[in-house]
């Protein structure tokens, strides 16, 4: 099979629907290692990928007033066991624009792979930007994933990010997202990860609520078992009047796994407020016994509880 077919096969296994890449009304970008193997755009969306030695540089612009009707689909990955992929994204969502992106990152055979993503994102006024990223890894854990994003959000805008890594071994994972939110704008950042074996998970999500009446929610749902280790740093700073934020971190551990949550809550304006909740522990006994009292075996009951949390 050619790289394209192999990527689509892995993409489908990751939950993607390959037919989207054949629809001319749907913008997309498929990148295998440092090769662009599929790309198309729609009116009002500028999507310019440029191959580099180790990956690609992408410029993504949604022009002023343009609302992209269909989700923009991205697929990044490496099919062989070894390799490096560095994705540099410069995205600009202009005033009154709207776009949703769905990125599938597929590394089904990873033994020695590095996947780095570095994004600089600017969201204008009255704009909406949603970025969903789903990872699909193999069972060896031989992968290092390093996503980094610096995001600026203008006035009256909305930023949503959803990251999930629930299929296959995590490997070594180090996410670092930082966002600055201006007047009346909203930040909604979620990460869901399931680690096992000797996976290492480190997440830093930071939101700076600098605008009046800005809002921020940082949400993490992490499950670790075997010898996996997770460390979640949720940092929310509110420095403007009526800015409000909340940090919500739940980590479930099984076996010899270890989990750490570090909420950093910083308020520098007397009219601002940030709250946080963090819970770390084994799967709730009452939840498990409730499902067992319906006839499920303990293992299955735990799967349902953890699966629901990560859904």
């Amino acid at each position, binding site marked *: 099979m050619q790289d394209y077919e192999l990527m689509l096969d892995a993409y489908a296994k990751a939950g993607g629907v390959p037919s989207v890449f054949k629809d001319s009304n749907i913008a997309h970008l498929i990148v295998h290692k440092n090769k662009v193997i599929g790309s198309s755009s729609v009116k009002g969306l500028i999507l310019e990928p440029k191959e580099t030695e180790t990956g690609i540089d992408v410029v993504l612009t949604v022009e002023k007033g343009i609302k992209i009707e269909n989700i923009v689909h991205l697929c990044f990955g490496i099919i062989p066991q070894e390799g490096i992929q560095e994705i540099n994204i410069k995205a600009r969502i202009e005033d009154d624009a709207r776009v949703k992106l769905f990125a599938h990152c597929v590394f089904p055979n990873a033994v020695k792979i590095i996947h780095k993503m570095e994004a600089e994102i600017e969201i204008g006024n009255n704009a909406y930007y949603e970025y969903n990223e789903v990872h699909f890894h193999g069972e060896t854990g031989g992968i290092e994933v390093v996503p980094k994003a610096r995001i600026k959000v203008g006035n009256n805008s909305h930023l949503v990010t959803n990251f999930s890594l629930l299929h296959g071994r995590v490997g070594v994972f180090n996410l670092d997202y930082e966002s600055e939110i201006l007047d009346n704008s909203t930040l909604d950042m979620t990460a869901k990860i399931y680690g096992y074996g000797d996976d290492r998970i480190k997440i830093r999500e930071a939101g700076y609520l600098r605008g009046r009446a800005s809002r921020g929610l940082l949400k993490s749902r992490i499950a670790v078992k075997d010898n996996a280790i997770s460390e979640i740093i949720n940092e929310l700073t509110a420095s403007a009047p009526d800015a409000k934020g909340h940090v919500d971190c739940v980590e479930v551990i099984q076996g010899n796994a270890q989990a750490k949550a570090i909420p950093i809550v910083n308020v520098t304006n007397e009219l601002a407020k940030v709250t946080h909740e963090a819970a770390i522990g084994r799967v709730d*006994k009452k939840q498990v016994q*409730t499902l067992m*009292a*319906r*006839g*499920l075996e303990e293992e299955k*009951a735990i799967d*349902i509880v953890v699966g*629901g949390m*990560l859904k």
Partner: protein
Amino acid sequence: MEILRIEKISLNLEGRQILEDLSLSVKSGTIHSILGSNAAGKSSLAYVIMGCCDYIAQAGKVYFLEEDITHLSVSRRAKMGLTLAWQEPARFEGLTVKDYIAVGMKTRDEDLITESLRHVLLEPSDYLERQVDKTLSGGERKRIELAAVFAMQPRLVILDEPDSGIDILALDNIINMIKALKKQGTTVLLITHREEVSEIADVTSLMCSGTIVKEGRPKEVGKHFKEKCIPCPTKAFPSEVDKQVKGAK
């Protein structure tokens, strides 16, 4: 026919005697209520019958359908047709109401899921896709618990204070649901501290200080409870209660 028999169960948790020498027999096809004040040991009895992991009796036996289930797991007991609806049901992030109700069904039946919600006066179109999480009120969660039990169609269900946290209007509905359970062939062990709720039972056992002190017709036992147990004298005059318990035995 006897569906559940408890023989001289004693439970001690962290040095405190919770159940002592408790025996009980429940007939198949009946509503059998356990009436008692707070801290009488009613919920602990429910957990012992269900086999919950922190409630392992130090002495005594539990028989279900003539089989000794004292050492069986919660799952095993549930597969035999025994289940429990908790006083404060657990919440599940990411699990929809329809999937939660389906968990206990032998074969998933969408019509029965819908019907079970209607039985507890929850409009299926409003609830099927909702999550069984903290967005539900306590009352909604309890109704969904009853709907799940109805859909499971167990042989015996222990309802631990299904009336607590429920407003007066909803109480009638809960009572109707309990009667519907009986009608579908499920035996109900109804735990309550309200004698008016207990009156829907065929038989009532009065529980005090970890044991059954009286058993009989619901109205008679309820009258005794109202006259002698409210307020609960165990907290005010423990020695008097000792006499009362021994006298009732």
